[in-house]
């Protein structure tokens, strides 16, 4: 679980420039959710945003030799998704009434707004990543409490235990969630996910 990041950002970028497919896979894992989310916030269209994110990564791979370093790669990926999303809104506005589209486009044009959206996307992915790292039984418990909205006593009956056990288990699940979130390297944890998944 506590496997260290195998590469620094700089090393990762260098490996990709040299055509290392595995490094590219790590880059994909690190950015795919943030890119799609970023697109969805602009266009409101999940499928379009998945295509946009995929296209951005594809273009990056094709131009990998031109990429100077990691910050450039990151900026490049988001800019491709941004441009494509704006074009998508323009195209769609020709067909539909474009009220919402134009508004969204105006909003999304300033640089600071783009930066804001990138921060938003990456922060969301970090929070998501923390939950993803919770042990299965913690996630299951929270699911039952907060999605199925089972009461503590019902849940205790279902699981054949006492309400106090449930309350304790819930508190533990939340405590470990906070602990995971407190990891300062969280923003870079996508790479760790890769190992978690591949280990199964």
């Amino acid at each position: 679980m506590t496997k260290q990041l195998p590469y620094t950002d700089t090393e990762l970028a260098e490996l990709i420039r040299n055509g290392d497919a595995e490094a590219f896979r790590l880059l994909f894992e690190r950015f795919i959710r943030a890119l799609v989310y970023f697109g969805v916030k602009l266009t409101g269209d999940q499928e379009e945003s998945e295509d946009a994110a995929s296209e951005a990564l594809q273009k990056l791979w094709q131009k990998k030799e031109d990429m100077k370093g990691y910050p450039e790669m990151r900026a490049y990926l988001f800019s491709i998704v941004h441009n494509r999303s704006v074009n998508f809104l323009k195209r769609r506005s020709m067909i539909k009434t474009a009220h919402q589209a134009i508004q969204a486009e105006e909003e999304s044009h300033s640089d600071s707004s783009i930066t804001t959206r990138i921060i938003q996307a990456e922060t969301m992915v970090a929070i998501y990543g923390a939950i993803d790292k919770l042990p299965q039984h913690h996630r299951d418990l929270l699911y039952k409490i907060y999605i199925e909205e089972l009461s503590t006593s019902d849940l205790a009956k279902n699981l054949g235990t006492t309400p106090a056990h449930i309350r304790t288990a819930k508190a533990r699940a939340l405590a470990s969630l906070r602990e995971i979130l407190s990891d300062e390297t969280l923003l870079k944890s996508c790479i760790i996910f890769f190992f978690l998944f591949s280990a199964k």
Partner: protein
Amino acid sequence: MIEDQIKNILLKKVRRVNLSMDEQRQLDDWLSVSDDNKAILSQILDERQLAAELMILQNISTDTIWEKLRDDLQLQGAMVTSINNKPRMRRYWMYAAAAAVLLAIAIPVYRWQTGAEKSQLAQKDFSKKFDLPPASNKATLTLADGSVIVLSDSVHGVIGQQPGSTINVKGNGEVAYTPSGNNTAGNDFNTIRTPKGGQIHLVLPDETHVWLNAASSITYPTAFTGKERRVTITGEGYFEVASNKDKPFFVQTNKCVVQVLGTHFNVDTYEDDEDSRITLLEGKIRLKADVKNGSVGNMKDVDLSPGEQAVMANEGGNNTMNVIAHADIDKAMDWRNGLFNFDGVHLRALMRELSRWYDLDVDYEKDVPDIQFGGGMSRSVPLSEVLKGLEKMGVHFRIESERKLIVINQPAK
């Protein structure tokens, strides 16, 4: 990079962690740039909004995207180490839910934090020079013959045979008595004591569960053979009494006797606290006057209904008892849920709780500062985290020795 710093600050806000003055200034600057930035902060602080945003992330089919991308680019070789291909539908819901929950529970800590922003004092880094871990599963068990067994996380398995029962220690701080052998016994008593910084979960031979807080004790027979079940407690414990109408369950405290039929309740009767509190969660209990230690109320029995709390105190030599109809159940039960609850708690009481949990001695240089707190904190953090919070509230300390803390009235220069 500034963006990374902002992201880290936002994550701290999600966790309701105190920001340093530097971080707070950075966040303020960032918020003042645009309404979009403000919108993001409120988005991650509102559990419903956050849950909705995280749902977007759940719905992204990364595996499918990757497979298509890999085929398009004709990537090979190392790429065969594919991540798991199982459908991940099962997991999808959880993420948003758990995040929503995280926020719900974190809110008390947030209240603490907002009150703290007035402090001009630079945050001290206690952790470098002085820190203590939170309480862990440890206790001593005194057997009927007077021999003492030390219980800790490293003790496992059947540790002894007592008249009428077998003692089994499980991994998670649980000590369980299971009836065995002859049931003729009845006058053999065991005692479990938690030290400061210890806690334990006891299962009695009748399947009654008792969670004992730090610096507490409970004495009980090794088999319940008589017409009633009777235990004695000091300190604080939470009881889930197994129902048995034929054998009423009695809890003797230093202030009163609690008669139980089968129920869940909390007994907080630390001798060094001003008052004792008995809080009922489920079922019904009867508080009986304790003749030995003087009267409770007017010597009448008092019945509690769920949600009620009896507060016993000694005012000017007279024992008093008041029943609070709609008690703050969370406040009484938060210790069981891994939280300190400091709502309306005065500094002296707060420091007492810390001293029990972290095995710490606390003294006061002059008067006890008259500070009342709100909010709460996790009980699983090291002491330094709690002290940082207190510093921000204007409570200052001097460290006297490894386990001794002096509350001072002026910040140290």
